């Protein structure tokens, strides 16, 4: 069952992810971004933090860093945030070959997610990968931060400075980042992309997200968090066309300590580029077959049914 399932899952993933293949192809990894080395994401991250100290970003009328425009994830692939070793058997997969890549994890330094033992058996191409449907295949959001590594996104900053809107090609996802102090939202209100609040820390946009429903995965390998996760993203321009993107993941249910991912968002400069509508459910044909093969929706009891 697993072998057949894996093939179909891979095939469906190939169909569903055709548009994001460019982002998944590490072979196109640039040697330098914004003057920073890209040998691994930690090297880029360390250099980018230095650049951020001196770079004076373009600004909005009210003096905030102007992050507006179209952006694509770089130094990313969606196979595994822990990277793909050169001897990984899936690199030779005849249907959807994976590509060797360094980890997107920059902390801990070994590039491994600090899972609690029970969770390590689920993520990291474990039970999730073998027995459960990648939630993105249900036409959901890719989730945070996976949205930021697949396909193109657009940031809009209304001059009223009360919200920042981050739009994504992927399954017409959006994130309304409410700036400043807002009334807290009760923990029983959950959403696929959670609810986000933002603030400026100098030239860095800091986005804190909770109220996640915990269904989404971090990558194709089934790495995950649950509905108790809290995410803190930091977006900092390090040259006119590059944002240093960093996210800290905390989830006492799953991890032994907070950990971090980092990569680059690079400006999409193709003339006339616009986001397009990527309807998904409206043309979805493969979920029924996946279910017939025995793939299931979520490993545990979803928060809603507890």
């Amino acid at each position, binding site marked *: 069952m697993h072998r057949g399932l894996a093939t179909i899952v891979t095939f469906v993933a190939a169909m569903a992810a055709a548009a994001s293949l460019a982002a998944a192809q590490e072979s196109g990894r640039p040697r330098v971004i914004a003057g920073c080395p890209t040998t691994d994401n930690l090297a880029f991250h360390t250099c980018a933090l230095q650049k951020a100290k001196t770079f004076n970003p373009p600004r909005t009328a009210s003096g905030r860093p102007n992050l507006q425009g179209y952006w694509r994830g770089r130094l990313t692939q969606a196979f595994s945030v822990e990277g793909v070793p050169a001897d990984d058997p899936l690199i030779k997969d005849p249907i959807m070959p994976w590509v060797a890549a360094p980890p997107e994890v920059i902390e801990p330094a070994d590039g491994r997610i600090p899972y609690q033992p029970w969770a390590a058996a689920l993520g990291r191409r474990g039970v999730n990968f073998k027995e459960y449907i990648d939630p993105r295949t249900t036409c959901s959001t890719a989730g945070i931060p996976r949205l930021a590594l697949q396909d193109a996104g657009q940031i809009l900053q209304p001059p009223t400075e009360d919200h920042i809107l981050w739009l994504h090609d992927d399954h017409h996802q959006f994130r*309304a980042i409410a700036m400043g102090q807002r009334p807290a939202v009760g923990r029983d209100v959950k959403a696929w992309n959670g609810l986000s609040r933002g603030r400026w820390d100098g030239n860095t946009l800091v986005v804190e997200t909770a109220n996640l429903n915990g269904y989404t995965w971090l990558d194709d390998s089934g790495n995950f968090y649950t509905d108790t996760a809290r995410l803190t993203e930091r977006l900092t321009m390090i040259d006119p066309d590059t944002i240093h993107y960093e996210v800290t993941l905390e989830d006492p249910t799953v991890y032994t300590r907070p950990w971090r991912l980092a990569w680059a968002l690079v400006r999409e400069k193709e003339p006339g580029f616009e986001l397009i509508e990527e309807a998904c459910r409206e043309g979805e044909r493969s979920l029924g077959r996946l279910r017939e093969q025995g793939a299931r929706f979520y490993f545990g009891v979803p928060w809603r049914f507890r």
Partner: protein
Amino acid sequence: MRHGFSSSILVAALLISAPRAGIAQAPAIPRMPDGRPNLQGIWQVLNTAAWDLQDHSARLGVPAGQGVVDGTEIPYQPWAVKRKQENFAARATADPETKGYLPGVPRIMYTPFPFQIFQTPTHVAMTFEYAQGVRIIYTNGTPHPEGPIEWWLGDSRGRWDGDTLVVDVVHFTDQTWLDRAGNFHSEALHLVERYTMTGPDHITYEVTVEDPKVFTRPWKMTMLLYRRKEPNVRLLEYVPGLLMEEEQGELERRKTN
């Protein structure tokens, strides 16, 4: 006595209303730094257009409502009258809404769920609680991309006509309906929407519906959008397709465990 009483009321009314007349004619509306009306915020209709665009009595689960169609009648071509009736009869399963699809435009504007408007000098973006829908309305002078393109929420290009945002929408599919009563259109649908703030908390929404394959002439709907003013209001999430997946997953989990 009677005459004198009326006169004093009249005088009092004049005294009260005269200085305010100017304000009543042009209520203040919020504006962006560039002087355009500021349409931003969370909005929602308070009508029954989602169930039926036209006058209708209550049915079980359907609130009674007065229509939003100017002139009451929708000018269907003869074949389309029949199709609308068939749609109505089969609505429990034939309505694309029951499959959890994106509901199309203008239907997404009058779902009984809130939506949020964001505005920059070059974009007006609308994000919807229903189905994670997004409309990006370009106000940067760019034209529609060349068709044929079939998008569930169409392609929207806007311009300002004084204080009114005018949005031209084309490139639709024929897979969406206009309401739960089976009113429908083809992929040749062309909309012209007009968003006019009539005060800080109200937008008059007018939409002209043109579809030469289905209707004999263009027709118009008019309704009000109301600002959601609860201090803690936020756009949450109602994605019917994913809720269906979740229910299905839970059924399977209970079966296997």
